[in-house]
């Protein structure tokens, strides 16, 4: 319910932002040497001649799975819908959200997103897994040796990780491991998940994932280290930890069972937030490593004023964020009984 409202808000805001931006998509599509009649025809086809609020209504109607359309052949083909109720000329239909077509390639936007999201998805997942698997143990380790040299070096390392921009780190990584040391590492400076070889066959290239994964995972990892550390320090000073020690439990059991479960909440918030934002595509990292993903496509679309693609991608990301938040709320409740509703 709450998520739905947020999504609606996102759609409206996105819609208006792209409608007040300068730039005329008709120009982009028609080229420069066209007469007024052609231009008007294009504008009409795209619905750009209508007043803004009607455009918004149409856009939302297109987007909504449950919507109203004139029941005719063109529409049936365009939306690929299932009729539910027929009311005169219009029908209430059930369909998958229609994000319109790219101004440029005329491909359906949903198709473009689906094609590119796979690369982004795996990259984001790999990066966040890398960040979590390294970050949490480092954070715990630092918290156990508070104020030692080890603690200080982990902390300064993580400060570097937070402050280094990803395009600098990405470029460094690509240069060092993908080029200078390429003979030892066997890694490419750029590449994508599926590569087509000269025979036209697709190959899964997992090794291409490594460098962008590390680049993208560095920021979240540094933050996870710090959050885990401070959260663990707080939990370890709690009285129930003393109770656990008074029971005669082993040090490892206390840290991994009694302390960590209490310390995880802020870490989960960070991890999920990062995962969702990585899903939006890491624009710089994807372009540095030549990775085929949502970020690269969005950047390209922005440069070409291809509004349906940009809007579609933005709304897709908003949806991902909302689902991620719902998922995290459920996760909180699983871990911490105090969050559970009565």
């Amino acid at each position, binding site marked *: 319910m709450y998520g739905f409202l947020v999504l609606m808000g996102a759609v409206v805001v996105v819609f208006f932002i792209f409608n007040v931006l300068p730039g005329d998509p008709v120009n982009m599509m028609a080229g420069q040497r066209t007469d007024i009649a052609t231009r008007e025809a294009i504008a009409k086809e795209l619905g750009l001649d209508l007043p803004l609020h009607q455009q918004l209504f149409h856009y939302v109607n297109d987007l909504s799975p449950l919507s109203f359309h004139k029941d005719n052949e063109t529409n049936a083909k365009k939306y690929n819908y299932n009729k539910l109720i027929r009311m005169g000329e219009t029908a209430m239909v059930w369909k998958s959200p229609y994000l319109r077509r790219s101004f440029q390639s005329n491909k359906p936007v949903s198709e473009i997103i689906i094609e590119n999201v796979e690369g982004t998805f795996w990259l984001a997942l790999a990066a966040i897994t890398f960040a979590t698997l390294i970050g949490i143990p480092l954070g715990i380790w630092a918290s156990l040796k508070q104020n030692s040299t080890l603690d200080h070096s982990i902390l300064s390392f993580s400060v570097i990780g937070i402050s280094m921009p990803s395009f600098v780190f990405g470029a460094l990584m690509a240069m060092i491991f993908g080029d200078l040391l390429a003979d030892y590492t066997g890694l490419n400076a750029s590449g994508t998940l599926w590569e087509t070889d000269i025979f036209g066959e697709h190959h899964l290239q997992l090794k291409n994932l490594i460098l962008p994964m590390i680049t993208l995972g560095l920021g979240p990892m540094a933050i996870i280290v710090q959050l885990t550390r401070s959260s663990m320090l707080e939990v370890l000073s709690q*009285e129930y930890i003393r109770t656990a020690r008074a029971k005669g439990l082993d040090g490892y059991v206390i840290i991994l069972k009694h302390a960590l479960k209490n310390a995880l909440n802020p870490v989960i918030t960070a991890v999920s937030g990062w995962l969702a934002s990585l899903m939006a595509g890491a624009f710089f990292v994807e372009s540095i490593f030549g990775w085929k993903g949502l970020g690269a496509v969005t950047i390209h679309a922005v440069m070409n004023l291809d509004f349906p693609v940009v809007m579609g991608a933005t709304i897709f990301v908003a949806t991902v964020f909302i689902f991620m938040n719902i998922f995290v709320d459920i996760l909180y409740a699983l871990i911490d*009984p105090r969050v559970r509703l009565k």
Partner: protein
Amino acid sequence: MSTTTPGATSNDLDFLLKVDHLSTYFKTEAGIVKAVDDVSFTLRKGETIGIVGESGSGKSVTALSLMRLIPNPPGNIVGGSLIFNHPEKGIIDLRHLSTKEMQFERGNSISMIFQEPMTSLNPVFTCGDQVMETIILHQKVSKQEARRRTIELFDKVELPQPEVIFSKYPHQLSGGQKQRVMIAMAMSCNPSILIADEPTTALDVTVQSRILDLMRQLRDENNMSILFITHDLGVISEIADRVIVMYHGKIVEQGTVFEIFNNPKHPYTKGLLACRPKLDIRLKVLPVVSDFMERDMDGNFVEKNSKFNSLGQAILFNYITEDDLEDRNKKLAQLEPQLRVKNLKTWFPIKKGLFGKVSGHVKAVDDVSFEVYPGETIGLVGESGCGKTTLGRSILRLIEPSEGSIEFEGKDITHIKSDDLRKLRKDIQIIFQDPYSSLNPKMTIGEAIIEPMRVNRILESDYARKKKAIELLEKVGLKKIHFNRYPHEFSGGQRQRVCIARALALNPKFIICDESVSALDVSVQAQVLNLLNQLKEEFNFTYIFISHDLSVVKFMSDRIIVMNKGKIEEMGFSEDIYRDPKSEYTKRLIHSIPKVDLENILRTSKARQLQLRNS
């Protein structure tokens, strides 16, 4: 009248734990703190030793040293031995066990319960799981068996519906129930020694008396020894066979309960016994520890002879007669009430569902009416959750009341706007419970006192305000040099003095003290109470004194209001309420307060002696 130490007749091999010259030091930036300094005592089988002392006296550190749970760094046991007569392993020194061996003894032969039941259970595991964990760890039994035993234990500690509690999380239980779970956990492996560190301090008196009953019963059933740590001598008198009094890391006196209460030898013990407000007589001024002793240049204790020669004298020369009290009450009743509270209700809505539909109300204050006369002290007493704090804050409109009216000096203040409200708050001040969190740590003491004056435009310049602030500091017993210091440099009692000075800065007519002495040690509490009384006489304040402690309220108040579940149970003159309580609830409240009654102590300790000899 002669008494012997219970168990002293039995031979020396009967000891269970012999603590010999134990010293535990903490390394701090200010140097080494000797938290426990050369402490020796012997705990016999089945015996209960009470350790008393104020905060920082080293009583908790002694307990944690026995468990070897001192956080290291900064703490370390630097000397002494902890000889334990283990039921299976014979005589061992706990201090020299390896980490693994010590882990095995913890929760098994020696177990511990802590002060704060709210925070000493892990919030993310069920109560059952946490007790089961100990059983599985030490007794190596299957999960089903551990579960069965846990439920049995829950039944033994008198938790209602043990099966249901088993799968409840700590936040779903009340404080008393949580402490019962802690006790069940500590009892799960039939320990020889139970160390209880202030187990009832955070609980209401009625709950406290039930928990003490339970501990006595479990002790007798299992022939267990208890080391009971508390700052409350009343509690000690109810449960202990012998008492150890600690001060600044050292044992200053030890003996049987009767010896300690009948004939305290050390001046500190005398002070400690005298400074508790008494329920039966009304004292003018509470004696404080410094009336009995001081420390000389070398830090040794010296008995002072100036004020009181004995405990009896401290009380005899110093109580208010009934006639005086009656006179005062009559005089008060002739005045026009300063504050009139009529049918006051403060309800909090319980919201449910998607759209926050109000499904009911928590009736924190429910239809309360009373009047306060100028110069009077009204005591508000009741258990936690009875609405006394909400009532206090509703009067100041820190919480908006839902219904009813409040009149101050004939003016309705229930609905006045923010400008008038600020003027009102100048006249009515509040002193909160926790002196640690009610002062801004980033603000000097002087700033904290000047700020309210500046906001309310009292005095024309900051120079004049500073002069006034210093005057106030001296009035509450602090010094001029404290003006530029920060709160962390002060002790709890000193901080509460700062809070009082801050409240006085606005020349209020009316002060609400919300549990203002509850977080303080009894000896410090006595000083602050005396200060409040002295200020009252000087400035003729009206007080509303809110506390859960009936003896403190009785010492302070002309009249007492007993609250229960948001309503007034009973209202009347302090002496009448205490001597002749009308409602069931008040009777139970008075009955639950641990009373230091020598005859009673003698009787129980004789009975215990017999019981110990027979076992």
